[in-house]
């Protein structure tokens, strides 16, 4: 991971905008931003963002590579698409934020213990294991991500919700043992593995080890 970061630093030296354009999903749109600020004012968790999308776009142009990639901001995107439909220049802002977050993670520069990053990784692993999400196992993984004691505490705090969902038949302990899934999960995982290989080839990365091979 660290090596990839150095490789990119060497390749793009002072041109972070070009790096974003070439490496980040939909990054080629960044230069279109005219700094109007509608995205910043439309953002669901906007007040919690250290750098709003508007600022992030300016920071990219100003070459503030580390400040952008180390930021928690993009990880606060709820995928509400409000910025995107309101942007007068039609920038796919939601996708750019996801792309930046994903790129930061790939380079190993995303903040440590970023809760959304951790959730995202858990979600992907969970859903691609059998081809469908197992909500109970996913929830447990999320709550226990900071360790056993903190997991127990969280489960205890939310026990009433759990009980409510259980009686509403929307949560079932059986999910720990029997999971929904695709019959051809092996085929699905082969396809995803291949997608990783193609992606690496296109972007000039090494293939990320993921354990799709089953």
């Amino acid at each position: 991971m660290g090596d990839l970061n150095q490789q990119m630093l060497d390749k793009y030296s002072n041109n972070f905008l070009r790096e974003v354009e070439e490496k980040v999903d939909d990054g080629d749109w960044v230069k279109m931003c005219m700094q109007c600020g509608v995205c910043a004012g439309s953002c669901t968790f906007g007040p919690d963002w250290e750098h709003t999308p508007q600022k992030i776009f300016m920071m990219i142009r100003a070459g503030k590579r580390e400040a952008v990639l180390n930021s928690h901001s993009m990880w606060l995107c709820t995928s509400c698409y409000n910025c995107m439909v309101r942007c007068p220049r039609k920038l796919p802002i939601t996708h750019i934020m996801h792309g930046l977050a994903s790129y930061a993670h790939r380079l190993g520069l995303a903040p440590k213990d970023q809760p959304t990053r951790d959730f995202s990784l858990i979600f992907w692993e969970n859903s691609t294991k059998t081809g469908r999400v197992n909500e109970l196992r996913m929830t447990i993984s999320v709550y226990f991500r900071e360790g056993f004691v903190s997991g127990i505490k969280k489960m205890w705090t939310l026990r009433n919700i759990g009980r409510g969902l259980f009686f509403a038949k929307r949560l079932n302990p059986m999910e720990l043992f029997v999971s929904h899934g695709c019959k051809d999960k092996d085929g699905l995982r082969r396809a995803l593995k291949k997608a990783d290989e193609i992606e690496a080839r296109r972007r000039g990365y090494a293939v990320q080890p993921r354990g799709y091979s089953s």
Partner: protein
Amino acid sequence: MAKREYAFYPGCSSQLRGSAANYLVSVESMCEKLDVKMTQIPDWNCCGASISYAGSSELARHVLSARNFALSDKHLPGQDIVATCAACWLGGRETIEKLDASSQLLADTNEALKEAGLEYKPGTEIRHMVEVLVEDLGYEELGKPVVKPLEGVKVAGYVGCQTNRPFGIAGESFENPMYLDKLIDTVGGESIAKYEEKVTCCGGSLAFCEPEKAEKQIKTIVESAYDHGADVICTPCPLCQANVEVYQSEINRKQGTKLNMPVVYYSQLLSVAYGGTLKEAGLDGHIIQPKKLQEIAVKVVPTKR
């Protein structure tokens, strides 16, 4: 004989034992009354939702959607795909849009899909259940099977984000879509035209990892419904439903509020109005009981007018 047939993509949360299991139940009973036949796409997979971007690549997410499309095309040729989940529908729409625009992305997706013995051929349509209702059937048709109008039930139509943005329902505005209010009125309920939080984000999947921030959104959404005298909030999205219903007790615990506003799906309103029982309408699947709807559901069906 069914009048209309669709390939059905229910999505993970709607499965048995899932957090939106009652959504699927109510959709099935609603569709039965509307003579709509929905056949599940055999062996469908998760769409990746909007949250998997750290762990996956864009291409991998397109492969997920394209696999479902290819399976649908293979087993249910010629049928439009219908999704009931906002994120499933949105993810599918994005894949179609991107693959239509880039022949390389299309070729890459198919190179990966070949590993599963499948091929995606452009031309697929994925539609939200709501689109089927308002576009293919229309409000007039939707009003016909009503045997128990939801008289006196005040419903805050909470559209949320992903059924509304960035694609939305054709002809509707992003800031004030009207279809949900019209659906509510069609089945005899009372919609709330001035409900301000109609398109406010509930926090989405970040309710999991940033609960405090999401709870702030949810509190606003619920309080506004109270301000307008709503009996129930109604939504087309399984994540909106779960978040807005489930976290009210947490907000109460932390902030001493007394929020207790039921949250249901549009399909449950329709199902009850069409004479569905508690069970058929999935009204036995709530933490906060939608009492007014439950009362209507247990009433004896009057003879059809």
